């Protein structure tokens, strides 16, 4: 049984379970879809700006320059330098890293090792600084003590574990 069973199976299971529990599945689905579309619309301006920004960085050679600069260090750590810009952008901007993942897919194909590593890194990390700002900001905490060191170390760990998972699952 392959991974292609997961998404359809997940969908069927949820709808079936919803029916069993007497949820009007179509109506609720549409209400949820409306929320999803609204969220997408909210995302649009920032994503538009950042997709163009990332395309600019890519076409101007700035991304390759950065990767090249960090290549010796990456070779030492065994981390593909093409994925480094994604690692650097990920904690700061969700839309920006989404745009960068798409750009990496355009250049290397999603099924290449770089494309896979970008996918795993994207799927196993979050927009660290956004979350810390929103959560602590909501309760007015300026002294966040060891929160940032712990979160940043976890982002570093995510990069390491992504590489490990790539090696385990794809050689």
């Amino acid at each position, binding site marked *: 049984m392959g991974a292609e069973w997961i998404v359809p199976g997940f969908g069927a299971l949820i709808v079936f379970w919803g029916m069993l529990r007497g949820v009007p599945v179509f109506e609720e689905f549409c209400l949820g879809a409306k929320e999803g579309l609204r969220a997408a619309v909210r995302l649009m301006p920032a994503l538009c700006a950042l997709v163009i920004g990332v395309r600019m960085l890519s*076409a101007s050679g700035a991304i390759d320059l950065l990767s090249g600069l960090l290549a010796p260090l990456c070779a030492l750590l065994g981390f593909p330098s093409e994925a480094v810009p994604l690692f650097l952008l990920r904690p700061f901007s969700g839309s920006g890293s989404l745009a960068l993942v798409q750009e990496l897919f355009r250049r290397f194909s999603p099924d290449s090792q770089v494309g896979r590593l970008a996918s795993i890194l994207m799927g196993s990390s979050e927009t660290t600084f956004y979350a810390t700002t929103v959560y602590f900001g909501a309760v007015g905490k300026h002294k966040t003590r060891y929160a940032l060191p712990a979160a940043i170390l976890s982002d570093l760990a995510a990069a390491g574990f992504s590489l490990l998972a790539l090696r385990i699952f794809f050689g």
Partner: protein
Amino acid sequence: MMNFLFAAMFFASFASAAALGRMRELSAAILEGGRNAVELLLTIAGSMAFFSGLMRICEKSGVARGLSRLLYPVLRWIFPQIDRKSEAFGAISMNIAANLLGIGNAATPFGLRAMQALDRGGTQASEEQIALVVLNTASMQILPATLLTIRAQSGSKAPDEILGAVLCASGLTLLFAILITKLFARLWRGR
């Protein structure tokens, strides 16, 4: 932060295009980038609508609530000081459950409610608050729907082949985040 990032994108692109003689490519990227952006948006919007629809069924049929109950032993371990009957514990459970299901717009309100319930005043964050925030800076989503959609749109032959690896990497990262937070809490307590 975003202002700086956005300005840096323009500056770095312009400078490196000028230095590398790639101004023509840069100009083309700006003029064509918009189409690219709208294409990406349309793809994501469709998949966000679909998965939000499914997640709404999840919420209404009690899956999120059931999941939050299943999480009890794990949360007990992460937040030993919090009373299980308290409002904070309930909000944390729902925050984590919504994160696991990938319902971002439900996770944040629960997370903020938990932050408020845990608050004891002052400007210094408590250990429980920090643990909750660090958890929320790690990825918990079981099914990264947007990622799968972009992989499919970019012509992947097997968009979902990375699911196992993503789950493995995010699980390990989450465990690391919990342990490092516990360790730091102990180290800072001594001060």
